[in-house]
C-alpha cells in the first residue's frame, strides 16, 4: 500500500493506493497512531485504491473508532471497482460516512 497525506487547516486527507490488506497493517497503524490527538476532519480518499479485504475494512473501522473517541469525524471518499463492491456488500456506509465527491 502507498499513502499520500495532504493537510489543511480543516482536514487531513489520506490517499491510499494499490491495496489495503492484512499485510499493510503496520503502515496503516502509523496513520492511526497519528490520529490519537487529531481534531481535524479526517478523509480517506480511496479513488486509487485497487483492492481491499476484510482486514482492510477492519482497519478502517479501527480508524473510525479512534477518530470518534477523539470527538472528530472521518469520511471515506470515492471508493472504486472492487473496493466499492466490498463497501456495497458490507454496507459500510451505515457506520462510516462514504461520499463520492470532493468534500
Amino acid at each position, binding site marked *: 500500500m502507498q499513502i499520500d497525506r495532504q493537510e489543511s487547516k480543516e482536514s487531513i486527507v489520506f490517499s491510499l493506493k494499490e*491495496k489495503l*490488506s*492484512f*499485510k499493510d*497493517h*503496520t503502515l496503516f*497503524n502509523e496513520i*492511526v*497512531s497519528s490520529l490519537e490527538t487529531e481534531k481535524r476532519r479526517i478523509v480517506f480518499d480511496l479513488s486509487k485504491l485497487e*483492492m481491499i*479485504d*476484510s*482486514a482492510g*475494512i*477492519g*482497519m478502517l*473501522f*479501527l480508524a473510525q*473508532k479512534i477518530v470518534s473517541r477523539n470527538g472528530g469525524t472521518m469520511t471515506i471518499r470515492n471508493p472504486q*471497482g*472492487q473496493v466499492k*463492491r*466490498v463497501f456495497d*456488500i*458490507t*454496507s459500510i456506509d451505515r457506520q462510516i460516512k462514504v461520499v463520492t465527491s470532493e468534500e
Partner: protein
Amino acid sequence: MAGFKDPDVRIVPFDALSPAGSPSACAVVAFVDPPEDPSKFLAPLASYRSFLLVDLAANDWPGLAARVRNARHAKICDGHLILSTKIAYTLEWTALLSAFLDDGFSFSTEILERFQIAAQELVTNAIIHGNLQVEIPAEKDADVFARVFSEVEDALSDAAHAQKPLFISLGIGPGRVDLSIEDQGPGFKFSHFVEKYNDQAFIKGLDYVLHTVDSFRKASHKGNVSIRLKEKGAEPEDTFDVQSQSVAIMSASKVLYNIINGHLTDLGYANIQRITADTPSLESLPASTAALIILSDIPFENVKDRLSRMRTASNKQVYPVLYQIDEKSGHEFDDDFFEYVNEILHSPVNFNEFASRLKVQLGMFQAKENLHEKLDFYLSELERVRPEVQRYEIFGSETIGGNGVRNDTQAPAKIHYYGSQTREIIADHIHTKKPEFSPEWYFQSFPTIADNPHFAAGIAFRETGMTPILLISRLAAEMRTRTDICDPDAAFAAIKTLASSILPAHIDRKVLVLGLSDAQDGHVCFWTSGPFSLFRIVTSDSGTTRITKEGVGIVPCANGAQRFKRPGLYLISPEDDFEEIFVDMEAAPGKDLPEKIHNALGLPFFALDVHFPEDGDLS
C-alpha cells in the same frame, strides 16, 4: 526433465514460457525462487488447455501433483498451483489470478471483482488459519493486528510451516469460474462461524465469501473449500458426483443458499446443488436427489412454476422439504432446523427405494400471507408425488410448535405446523380433497380433533416418563398386530394389559386416554388405571366459557373403559377430590386457554375434544 516426448506437454523454466502451440497443450512451470513479477509469465498460461505451477519449496509436491492431474472439470482451461505457504503469503496470488482471468478470458467486471474478493479471503484463511493455525479475534484493535502479524511471521520462520503446501485450482468454463483451495489444516465447522443469517455480520472473511459467490462447498473435516462464480444466464454444469446422494436447494438468495450449504457440509453432505429461478432445467438434478429444500425467500409463483415444470420432467422423485423464513426478521438457522433437515435426509428410508418406502415430509410453515393457497398447493404436490400416501400424521398445537417424531411404515406423511390458522387449512384440505385420508393429530398441550370419523388420537400421562407420541406409538403398534381390533372393547382390554406392563409400577395413579372410533358408532373410550375426575368445557351462547365437573357424560364399559356419551371438550384429571367444581374461564388468569385451565383448576389434566359423526347423545 529432458526427454519428455509428448508434443502436447511443454516443460519449461518459468521465465521461458511462450504461448501454447496447440489448443490442447498443457504447461508445467516449476520454480525454486519466485519471480519478482510473476504476472509476466502468467499471461501466456491463459493460452494453455491446463497448467500446473509448482513451487518446489512446497513439500510432498510430487505425490500431490498426481492428484491434481485428475482434477479436470473445466471446459476451457484449468490451472493448478502448488505453493509453499511462505510463497503463497509473500506474493499476491489472488491479484495475479484475477489478472490472469482478466487478460485471458472475457469475464465481466462484476465476476472479476467478486472473484478477487472471495479468492483473497479464502487464500488468506487457508494460509493463516489453515496452514499456520493462527487465530484472529473477532474484536480487532491495533494491538490485535500487530500480534497476529507477529504470530504469522514467527510461524513462517519455521520451515515445517513455511513449506506446507497450499493447493489452488482454477477451472474456467463458459461464463463461470471455479476456485478450489486446499490447505493442511483440520477444516472448520461452518456453524461456528456463520451462526445467523444476518447481512450485518461482516466480521469474518467467510461472510464476504458467502455474499459474493454463487456456490460454496467445503469438506467436512479438512481444509478444502470450493467456490463458483458465474455470469448471469450461464448454464450450470453438473460436476457433482451423480452416484452419491445429493440435496437440491431452491433459493433466490445465494447468501441463504451458501449458509444452508455450509451447514449441510458440516453434516457430511458433499453433493449440494442450487436451483434458482434462472436455472433453465431441472434435468441436471441427479436421479439420486434425496431432498429438495425450498426456501420460500423466492416468490411463491416461482416455486409453483418450478414444481409444475417438474411434473412434466422425466420421472424425478424428489423429496419436498419446505421451510419458510422471514428475511426481515433476521431468522436464525439454529441447530434445530439443521437437525430437522438432517433427520429427514438420514431417516431410515432408503432413498434409492422411493417406490417402496412411502415417507414424505412437509416442513414447517409459519403464518404468512397467501398461507391458504400455499399450503393447499404444497399438500396437493405432496399427494401428487406420493399417491400411495394413505394418511397424514399431523404434529402441532394451537399456540406452540409441535415436535415429536414418529416412525411408521403405513404410508404416512408427516406435517408439522404452527398456529391454529395453519391447522384449519390442513383440516379443510383433508376434508374437501382427501376425505378418505386418516389424519392423526398429536398435540403437546391442547388438542382438537378433526371432524372425521376415521380418526385416532391419543394423549398419554406425562408422568410415565415417555413422551405422548412414543407411548401411543407403542400402543398403536401393538394394536395393529391384534386381529380383533375391530372390537373396541377388546382393543381397550389389550391396551390396558399393555399399558400396565409399560407404565412404571410406582406411579399408581395414571390416566391413559386413548380414543378410538370406527365408522359404525363413532364412540370414544378411555381407560384409566385409577380414580379420575372428568370435566367438561362449556361455552354459553353469550360466549362465556366455564369448566364444570362432569358426572353423567360417560358410560362405563365392561372392561373398565369409559365411553363418552356426548361430544364436547373434556378435561380428564387423575385427581378426584372434587365433588363439585365450577370455574368461570373468563375470570381465570392466563394468556391462553390451556394456561387458564391449569391456573383455574390447579391440577394436571388432559384435554380431549370429542366428536361424533352425528351430534347428540348416544344411547
